[in-house]
């Protein structure tokens, strides 16, 4: 396994300049997720406007893969409807669990296709999925309890 497949230029760019980083108001749900193996953490907020993901804001500490993944998530999900966002999450997860056998769809995943290489490194898949699992959790909280802070 070639480490260059993991550390694509796109990933390193997102790592150095993460999009959408920082915690912002307003938000309907906030979650805190941890990767227990390595300690990577993310606090992630979701703000919905009706059915639309109006904002995703986050404070993440972790490796290049987990940081870049949160940045790409921000790019991909903000502005989409919740069902659209969940479809993107499914597509991303499928590639991540594909052990390098699943061809990513650039139409859907845009910069996220750079993570195809991560799928060949099973130990890093959890890094790439950390922010996505947090987003899924936050969205389901926001949807089920829209008034709650």
């Amino acid at each position, binding site marked *: 396994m070639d480490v260059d497949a993991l550390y694509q230029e796109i990933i390193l760019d997102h790592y150095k300049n993460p999009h959408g980083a920082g915690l912002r108001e307003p938000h309907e749900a906030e979650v805190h997720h*941890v990767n*227990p*193996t*390595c*300690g990577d*953490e993310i606090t992630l907020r979701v703000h919905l406007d009706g059915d639309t993901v109006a904002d995703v804001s986050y404070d993440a500490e972790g490796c290049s893969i987990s940081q870049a993944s949160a940045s790409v998530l921000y790019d991909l999900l903000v502005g989409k409807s919740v069902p659209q966002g969940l479809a993107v999450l499914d597509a991303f997860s499928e590639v991540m669990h594909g052990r390098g056998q699943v061809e990513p769809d650039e139409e859907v995943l845009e910069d996220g296709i750079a993570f195809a290489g991560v799928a060949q490194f*099973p*130990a*890093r898949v959890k890094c790439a999925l950390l922010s996505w699992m947090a987003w899924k959790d936050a969205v389901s909280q926001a949807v089920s309890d829209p008034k709650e802070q």
Partner: protein
Amino acid sequence: MTRTQGYDVEAIRKDFPVLARSVAGGHPLVYLDSANTSQKPRQVVEAIERHYLEHNANVARAMHQLGAEATAAFEGGRDKIAQFIGAPSRDEVIFTKNASEALNLVARVLGDVGTVGPGDEIVISQMEHHSNIVPWQLLAERTGATLRWFGVTDEGRLDLDDLDTLVNERTKIVSLTWVSNMLGTINPLDVVIARAHQVGALVAVDASQAVPQIPVDVASLGADFVAFTGHKMVGPTGIGVLWGRYDLLASLPPFLGGGEMIETVTMERSTFAAPPHRFEAGTPPIAQAAGLGAAVDYLTALGMENVAAHEQAITAHALERLQEIDGLTIVGPREPVDRGGAISFALDGVHPHDVAQLLDSRGVAVRAGHHCAKPAHRRFGVQSTTRASFYLYTTEAEIDALVEAIRHTQRYFKVS
């Protein structure tokens, strides 16, 4: 004599080098103590050896290549066990050190979470192995709950006559063996599980003697917990399994605290990982899981239906041959119906210890004593018995050697 189609016991024996051994006095080993622990095929031992010499590392937390290989071997063992027992999810498979720890884990965490208290009842049976008695006695003692139990019929079957009064609305936990390691009885778990769930009790099954011998599907069994142990199913020592329903496991607190089972730790407090890791504190039995995975592969290749049929045929032969011996009394069912491959017996005028010693002098390895089932012995008015137990590599010739050695014992002690 019944023979399973295509089941070649002589070929199977070649996988078990110890079976070709001779013991003191030059007698070939006749190993009839498999209910105590099974022998291991070369394939299992080689999997362990290969793991240590080529792929050894710690799991999960190591992110180098060796760590990835070790994690694949360990978690691969979990996948194989999950599939072997028909677990709906791999995350329902918890590795423990043996079946005893698995049963204690259940008893401890149910105690910690307040499942039982004064006035509540825990139901077991008189034919349990000590590992499925003592944890519940200790739980009852710690919580003030009452321990009750199924009796055993004269034939050695579970006495279900008072099922509906014994398992009642006060019952919170029922823990029962599937196959008795002393009597050989296979219990009708379905009726007990149905009744227990009717009254809202949780059901734990001690499958230590079942998983090695018969095809097991935990999903259709319908129990809440199932415990078994690696070393009785051609796997290594040092590993056992607790299967539990996922939603139930997810609702329970940890048993042991430490590495691998946490989500986050501060000095003030900790949060815990999801099952199965929540229940696996510290470095797990990594090489043992790799070995147990190889054991599952071995059993699967033979086919558990074939293993069960062979066990059945050998047990029938043994029951028949042993009953030809005057002065020998079988304790437990005498018919090969709903019966596993362990036969305990008494021999008039010779103490079980002395029987075992004489058999050993002829190369025949059996167990003598209470087989960790003192209450079941007391039920039949005996302090101990001699037990012969069979497995997938046992031959009819070995049964015949057992019978001949018993007759020799009778002559030696001048009781026939």
